[in-house]
């Protein structure tokens, strides 16, 4: 994106898609979904020490309808699956999912009757963060990966394909 602001009024030359991506990339509002010990690490990442807000995750949104990135930090039990799925469904498009920790990625140490063996069984996952628990740096890295992914996105082309014009 070429952005030049000379004195006076200035001008901006870009593609609409890039502008949209730029906006999305710089404000991925997270929906913190901490269900177990990984949640503590996520809180650390959100708090002042690591400060996820530096990357635009400024406002942890506790309403799924106003969130962009679902951070699943912790175990999902089978009892909770429908609720988790519902929260994902309530998020408005576009949306991304970070699966944080061994539990969310694969069930982790809980290979039992009560634990979902990986959240990718119910929702699509964009970035997996390994670790038990991952360090806050891991979560920050995942968020940056999401940003890279957003950057490569073609929102208008996708929309056009959806309504069946152009390509």
């Amino acid at each position: 994106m070429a952005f030049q602001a000379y004195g006076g009024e200035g001008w901006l030359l870009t593609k609409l898609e890039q502008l949209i991506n730029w906006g999305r990339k710089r404000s991925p509002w997270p929906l913190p979904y901490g269900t177990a010990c990984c949640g503590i690490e996520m809180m650390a990442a959100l708090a002042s020490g690591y400060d996820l807000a530096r990357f635009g995750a400024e406002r942890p949104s506790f309403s799924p309808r106003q969130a962009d990135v679902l951070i699943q930090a912790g175990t999902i039990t089978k009892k909770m699956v429908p609720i988790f799925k519902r929260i994902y469904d309530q998020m408005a498009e576009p949306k991304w999912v970070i699966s944080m920790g061994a539990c969310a990625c694969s069930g982790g140490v809980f290979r039992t009757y009560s634990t979902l063996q990986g959240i990718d069984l119910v929702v699509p996952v964009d970035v997996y963060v390994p670790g038990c628990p991952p360090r806050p740096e891991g979560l920050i890295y995942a968020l940056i990966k999401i940003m890279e992914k957003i950057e490569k996105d073609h929102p208008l082309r996708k929309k056009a394909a959806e309504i069946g014009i152009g390509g």
Partner: protein
Amino acid sequence: MGLKEDVQNTLGELALDFLECQGDLSVTVPKDKIVEVLTKLRDNLGFNFLSDVFGVDNSVFYEKLAKAKAKKKKGEEDKEEEPQGPPPPRFEVVYLLLSLETNKRLAVKIQVPEDDLVVDSVTCLWKAADWPERETFDMFGIRFKGHHNLKRLLMWDEFPAHPLRKDYPLEGQGEERILEYND
């Protein structure tokens, strides 16, 4: 006077068996007298706090015990056969009591056979028994008579099994919770 004597004197005939391990006392009592026993312990001995109620499935433990016994017998043939009683009941329900005045603890056990899984609820004595009893029902299928709301506590309502029974596989039998909701 020790705690054991106190309990013995209070319960009399109702105390079937004592076990003392690492300074912790447990007493086995008849299953259908549990409310009576706990009332006595609460009112006479000051055990006014119920810390927990839980179930135990002893089936694997008894199997291993029997195997070990059989092995021993093979080694020393000449020993006399021990009389074979009926197999011990499969389940146990344990009540952990604490006296807030004397800071003493006592475990009260009842044995629950597999074909009669009904135990009297003690929610009439302690409200604290509500959730532990529900959990015991959830995990072992032991029903508590007189409980006002005996639903599953941890697993979802439609869950078809009792997962802490020893014959239930750790990884489950493929149960999934399916919940329909209207869009």
